[in-house]
C-alpha cells in the first residue's frame, strides 16, 4: 500500500446477475499517478467491476471511495463529472462529428450562452492534442482517422474533463506496435500529471512495460494485488488460472479417458500463420484420430487460429496444408466441403439459430446432403435428427422444440451433432464446455474422446487446464499470437502447461529484462 491515501478504493464489492454471482468479494485500490493493471480470465469479473466503478451497473453491496469521498455513480456521465473517464476498445465517440466537437461533446464552450464557440473549441482541442504529440486537423470528422488516433482523442477528452482516473479497457487490442508506443507515451504523461490509470489488457509485455501495480481477479474475487515488478509471469499466470505453483496434479476430473490413441495421417497443418496483430506466427498440425489442444490465455490468438483453419478469416501470411498439400479455404463453406467442422465459443452469437427448431439447427450444415434437386427429404432429415438426439442424449421435448429453450449443454450437443452428422474428418472445438453444467460437460468430453478413437481429428481450444492435460494427445501453446510450445503427452501436466502459457519460448532479449 502506498503511504498516502489511495485515489480509488473499492472494497467488498458484490454484484449478482440473475443466476450468477458476477462479483463475490472484489476489491481494487489505485494510488495517485499510478498505472494499475487489472487482469483475469474470461468471467473473472474485471469488466463488471469496471462497469460498477463507471456507473454502468449498480453494486449490490460494498463501498467505493474516490479521493477520500464515498461515491456511487448512477451513470457514465455522472462518473465522468466525478473525475472518472473510460476509454473502451471500440471508441464510443461520434464518428461523424469533428474531432473538436467530440472532445467537447456535452460541454461545449459557448458565447452569449447560446452560440457555440467553435473557434475556441478548435483552438483548445488542437492544443490539447498537440500536448499529446498529435498534430491533426481537429475540424475533420473523427471517423476519418484511424482507431489509434480516435483513441488518442478519447484520451484527450478524458484529460480535458480533468479526470483523476482514466479507465482503459483493452485499449491496445486494435492498435499496431507504433500506435501502442504512442499510447504508452500518453499514459506516461498522464502519470506525470498525477492522473491514475486502470489498464486492462491480456498482453503481458504491455502490462510489464507500463503498469506499476496489478490486481488479479478470478471467479468474481480479487485474488492478489502487488507491485508489478514483484510478480513473475509464471506467478501471474498461475494466479489467473487458479493453480498455485507446485500444487499437486489434481485427480481425474474430466470425462476424458486419457487412453493412448494411434494418430494416423496428417489432416491439417498450419505453418507460420499470420493475420493482423492477433495472429503473428502460429504453426500446428492435427492428425486423424488425435485430440490436439490449443492452450493459452485470453487474447493469445486461439480463436483467431481456429477461424483461419476453418476459412472464416483469411490468413495474411503463412501456409495452410490439407492432407499435406497447400490449400486455400475461401470461406467456411469450402472448409465444410473438405470435411472440417467448427463449433464457435460463442454459442449464442455464432452457433444457434434461436428461432429455429432443434431439427433445423441440427441439420443446417447437412441440408445439401439431405436434399435432392434442392428439396429437403423430410424423412431422411427426421431419421438423422432422431438418431443424433438418441446418440448424444440430447434432452429436448422433441425435434420441433425451439433450440433457444434448451439448456446450454444440450444446445452444445445439437451444435456438435450439426457437424457429426456430416462425418467430418476434422472438428475444431472452441471452448466446447464453456458455460455448461458438470454433467453435460463430462458427457461432451466422453463424446469427444470416443470420436477421436473412431478416427476423427480434433483441435480443441480450452481455458480449462484439466481439459487440456487429460483430454489431449498434444497441446500447442499460444502466447501473444505465436505458437510458443508444443507439449507431447509424456510432458503434459498442469505445471508444465502453466509454465508454457506464462513464459515459454520468449526471445532471449526479452528474458534479459523480465523478472526472474
Amino acid at each position, binding site marked *: 500500500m502506498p503511504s498516502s491515501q489511495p485515489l480509488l478504493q473499492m472494497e467488498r464489492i458484490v454484484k449478482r446477475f440473475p443466476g450468477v454471482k458476477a462479483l463475490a468479494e472484489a476489491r481494487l485500490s489505485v494510488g495517485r499517478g499510478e498505472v494499475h493493471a487489472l487482469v483475469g480470465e474470461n468471467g473473472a469479473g474485471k469488466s463488471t467491476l469496471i462497469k460498477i466503478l463507471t456507473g454502468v451497473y449498480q453494486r449490490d453491496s460494498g463501498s467505493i471511495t474516490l479521493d477520500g469521498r464515498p461515491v456511487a455513480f448512477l451513470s457514465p456521465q455522472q462518473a465522468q463529472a466525478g473525475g472518472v473517464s473510460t476509454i473502451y476498445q471500440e471508441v464510443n465517440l461520434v464518428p461523424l462529428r469533428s474531432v473538436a466537437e467530440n472532445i467537447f461533446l456535452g460541454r461545449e464552450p459557448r458565447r452569449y450562452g447560446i452560440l457555440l464557440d467553435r473557434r475556441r473549441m478548435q483552438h483548445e482541442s488542437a492544443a490539447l492534442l498537440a500536448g499529446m504529440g498529435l498534430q491533426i486537423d481537429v475540424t475533420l470528422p473523427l471517423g476519418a482517422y484511424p482507431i489509434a488516433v480516435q483513441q488518442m482523442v478519447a484520451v484527450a477528452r478524458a484529460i480535458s474533463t480533468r479526470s483523476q482516473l482514466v479507465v482503459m479497457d483493452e485499449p491496445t487490442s486494435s492498435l499496431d506496435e507504433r500506435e501502442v508506443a504512442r499510447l504508452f507515451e500518453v499514459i506516461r504523461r498522464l502519470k506525470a500529471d498525477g492522473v491514475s490509470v486502470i489498464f486492462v489488457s491480456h498482453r503481458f509485455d504491455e502490462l510489464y512495460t507500463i503498469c506499476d501495480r496489478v490486481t488479479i481477479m478470478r471467479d468474481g474475487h480479487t485474488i492478489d494485488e502487488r507491485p508489478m515488478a514483484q510478480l513473475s509471469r509464471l506467478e501471474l499466470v498461475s494466479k489467473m488460472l487458479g493453480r498455485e505453483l507446485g500444487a499437486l496434479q489434481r485427480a481425474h476430473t474430466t470425462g476424458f479417458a486419457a487412453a493412448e490413441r494411434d494418430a494416423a495421417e496428417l489432416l491439417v497443418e498450419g505453418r507460420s500463420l499470420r493475420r493482423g496483430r492477433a495472429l503473428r506466427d502460429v504453426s500446428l498440425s492435427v492428425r486423424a484420430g488425435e485430440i490436439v489442444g490449443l492452450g493459452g490465455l485470453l487474447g493469445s490468438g486461439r480463436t483467431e487460429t481456429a477461424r483461419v483453419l476453418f476459412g472464416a478469416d483469411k490468413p495474411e501470411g503463412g501456409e495452410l496444408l490439407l492432407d499435406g498439400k497447400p490449400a486455400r479455404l475461401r470461406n467456411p463453406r469450402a472448409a465444410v466441403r473438405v470435411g472440417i467442422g467448427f463449433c464457435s465459443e460463442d454459442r449464442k452469437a455464432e452457433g444457434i439459430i434461436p428461432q429455429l427448431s432443434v431439427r433445423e439447427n441440427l441439420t443446417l450444415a447437412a441440408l445439401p446432403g439431405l436434399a435432392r434437386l434442392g428439396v429437403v427429404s423430410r424423412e431422411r432429415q427426421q431419421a438423422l435428427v432422431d438418431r443424433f438426439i438418441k446418440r448424444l442424449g440430447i434432452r429436448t*421435448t422433441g425435434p420441433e422444440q425451439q433450440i433457444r429453450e434448451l439448456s446450454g449443454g444440450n444446445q452444445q450437443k445439437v451444435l456438435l451433432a450439426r457437424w457429426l452428422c456430416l462425418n467430418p474428418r476434422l472438428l475444431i472445438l472452441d471452448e466446447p464446455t464453456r458455460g455448461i453444467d458438470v454433467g453435460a460437460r463430462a458427457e461432451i468430453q466422453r463424446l469427444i474422446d470416443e470420436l477421436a478413437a473412431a478416427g476423427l481429428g480434433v483441435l480443441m481450444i480450452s481455458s480449462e487446464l484439466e481439459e487440456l492435460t487429460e483430454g489431449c494427445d498434444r497441446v500447442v501453446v499460444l502466447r501473444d499470437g505465436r505458437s510458443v510450445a508444443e507439449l507431447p503427452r509424456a510432458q503434459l501436466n498442469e505445471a508444465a502447461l502453466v509454465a508454457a502459457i506464462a513464459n515459454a519460448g520468449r526471445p532471449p532479449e526479452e528474458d534479459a529484462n523480465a523478472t526472474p
Partner: protein
Amino acid sequence: MLPRDGAASTKSRFATGAGLAALGRRYGALAALALLLLYNLLFTRNFLSTQTLYVNLTQVATIVIVAVGMTLVVATGGIDLSVGSLMAIAGALAPLIFLSQAPALSNPAIAIPLAFVLPVLVTAALGLFNGVLVTSYRIQPIIATLVLYIAGRGIAQVMTNGYLQSFKNPAFQSIGLGRPLGIPVQVILMLIVVAVAAWAVRSTVFGRYVLAVGGNEAAARLAGAPVSSVKRSVYVISGALAGIAGLIVIAINSASDANLVGQNMELDAIAAVAVGGTPLTGGRALVIGTLVGALIIQLIRFTLISNGVPYAAAQIINAAIILGAVYIQRP
C-alpha cells in the same frame, strides 16, 4: 404447418407449448380477416357475389405477388423499397416491345412472349443489383434499395419519354384480363406464387437457408450456408415478382403510365408482410400470413370505400387497423 404423417403428429403434441404462441400470433391476422368478412356479409350489399369476390381478388393479386417476394427479403433481415419502381420499369418496357415497329418484333409470336419474359428478366437483374449492393458492398438494405426506388421510376420515364403508352393487345392483356375457367389469370398466378413460396420456405434447402441467414447470419455462415448468394437470390426473386406484378397492372389498365404503375406498392407489400406476422427483424417467413395480411388490407379498403367513406379518411382508418393488427401480433 400441419403434420403430414403419424410420426410427426406424435411429435407435434410435445411442441404445442412452444407452438401455441406462434399459432396465437397467426390466428390474430386470421381473426381480423374473419371479422372483416363477417362485417361485410352483414352490412355491405351484394358482398356475397362472384363479382365482388373477383374485384377484390384481382385488386389484391398484385399486392400479394409483390409481398411474397418482400416476405423472403424480410426473412433474411432485409427490405426491398424498389418493388414499386421495378413494376414501373416492367410496365414501361413491355409495351415498347409489343408496340415496336422493328421488323424483328412485327411477328406477334415473337413479340408477345418477349413482352412477358424480357421485362421480368430486367427487373430480376435489377433485383440482383440490389442484392449485390447489400452483399458485396455491405450497404444497408433500406438504403441499397432506395437507390432503385428513386432511380427506377426515372428510368421508366426516360424509356417512355414520359408519355403515357395506351394500347389494345388482347394477347398480352390476357395476363390481366384473361379468365380461364372463369378465374382471373392474375388470381391463378397469385395462388401459384403463394403456394410455391410457402412450399419452398418449408421444404427446400434454399428456404431453410433464408431463415437461417435471417435468424443468425454469423452462425449460418459458420455452418457453411452460402449467405451472400442466398441474400442475392431473395432480391432477385423480389425483383422478378415485382416485374410480373407490373405487367399485370398495365394489362388491366390497357395503358402504362411510368408515373403511376406500382406507386406506393412497397408500402402495401411491407404492410401485408407485417400484418401477416413475419417479423421485420428476419428469421421467419410466413408466406400464408402475408396472403392473409394482403387480404386484410384489401378488405379494409374495399369495406370503407363501399360504405361511402372518402378515400382520404379510409387511408387513416386503414393505417390504424394495420397498427392494431401488428400490435396484437407483436412477439
